[in-house]
């Protein structure tokens, strides 16, 4: 880890594309070491929220704070160097590079020079995902969907991030592999990494979280402990109905 776990906070964030806001005044915070899961219907702005958090999208107004520091003005590379790792929803690997090169790129541009070496991190990450060890020399784009998801996750974990942003990590995985992936997510979280997770498998996602947020049409409909969000039938009807 780059240091002690850092928290993440959004204050009145308005963001969108081409001057059109998609997110309307979003505020929430994730305490250091906590897991926050965002659920909501398709097109509600979950991925847009993630891109704003990691710095691929500049908010039109509002502030993003990471570990107590205002990072709103920083681009994605600078936020990554502060210990924020991200796995996008789509194309989350370098398809024309080998698995090993993917892990290398995940490590070398953000890992602190005083921290663990590449080979130490490689062993640690392969310990979490033993299935990809035999695939290290394969072109990443030729792997199966499930294997790619593992490579994406492994690459993001290479620099030992303090905050991890995951956009639909279980997409395309079999129920069994989705379960296994969330087991790994649980283990990573247990080591003190702060997590922001978008997940369409609400039972799995909310089951692994401390806090939950329901995002509908770019508004936070509800922010509550994950347990409450998961079990409340009214809430389930609300967002599953795609209001």
């Amino acid at each position, binding site marked *: 880890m780059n240091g002690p776990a850092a928290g993440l906070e959004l204050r009145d964030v308005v963001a969108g594309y081409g001057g059109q806001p998609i997110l309307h005044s979003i505020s929430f915070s994730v305490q250091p070491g906590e897991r926050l899961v965002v659920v909501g219907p398709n097109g509600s702005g979950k991925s847009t929220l993630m891109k704003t958090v990691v710095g691929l999208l500049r908010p039109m107004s509002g502030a993003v704070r990471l570990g107590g520091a205002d990072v709103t003005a920083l681009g994605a590379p600078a936020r990554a160097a502060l210990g924020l790792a991200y796995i996008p929803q789509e194309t989350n690997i370098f398809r*024309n590079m080998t698995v090993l090169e993917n892990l290398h790129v995940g490590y070398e541009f953000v890992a602190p020079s005083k921290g663990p070496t590449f080979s130490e991190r490689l062993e640690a990450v392969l310990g979490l995902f033993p299935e990809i060890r035999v695939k290290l020399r394969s072109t990443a*784009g030729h792997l199966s969907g499930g294997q790619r998801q593992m490579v994406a996750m492994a690459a993001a974990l290479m620099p030992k991030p303090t905050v991890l942003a995951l956009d639909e990590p279980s997409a395309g995985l079999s129920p069994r592999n989705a379960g296994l992936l969330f087991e790994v997510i649980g283990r990573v979280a247990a080591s003190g990494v702060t997590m922001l997770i978008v997940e369409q498998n609400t039972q799995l996602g909310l089951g692994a979280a401390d806090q939950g947020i329901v995002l509908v049409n770019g508004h936070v409909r509800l922010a509550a402990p994950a347990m409450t969000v998961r079990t409340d039938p009214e809430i389930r009807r609300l967002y599953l109905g795609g209001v």
Partner: protein
Amino acid sequence: MGQLLVNGIVAGLLLALPALALSLTFSVLRFANYAIGSYLTCGAYLVYIGNVVLGMPLWLAAGAGAILFAVLAVAIDWLAYRPLRDRSGVTLLVASMGVAIALENVIRFFAGNSPRAYDVAVARPIRLGDVRLNHEQLTILMVVIVALAVVWIVFRFTRLGRMMRAVADNPDLAAVRGITRSRVVACVWLISGILVALSGVLVGLDANIEPQMGWTYLLPVFTATILGGIANPMAAVAGALTLGIAEEFATLVMPVHYRMIVTFLVMVALLLLRPWGLFGTRWVTK
């Protein structure tokens, strides 16, 4: 037959460096730099200044000129292309046409229209059996092969190579993995600037140095690059060799000065049948 093959390989290698440069900038910047012909001419003239005006030996003038031109390529990017970075590839293509015309006129203004030649000793061709290889061809062979090997090693095995390939593959993911795009863009212009300037010298050795020299190469370079699959730099080299050899063998069935038609036909056939290139399928985009 052997002679044709050798000539074809040399012609192909002559195309390989600018084709590699074109494809390298395309893979990272997503626009086809139409000014590449003028870049080639400009590099050739810069080296001419070192070699003939300042009296440096050609290898020294070529090294200095290539580095100077690489810096110039970065400067052109800052002035002309960077402000348009978020526009479409077509806008940038048009901008690069403007750059091409501007560069060429600057060259004409200072150097005039008459052809010039580098100051090199004339040497007797080398004979290997019934195949003749003159010194210019030997120089082309060696310089291009060394340059290609260096670029390949940088691409495969270095941090800089991984940076460039990562941005070419997935710019957003590269950014969140800590790679600053503007730095990669500058490196790409430096490398392709060096490659194009060197190829300008080689073309100048093979023929003459004159303001039109880059134009003559524009169509074959684009054809070779598309033949390889435009976003895949190393395949552009294969495309260049294929085209060079095809042009040379075409002289068996048609007059020498019609060989440009071969390039045209290859280009048209490619655009109709395989716009992603002969070797382009290895680039995974699914």
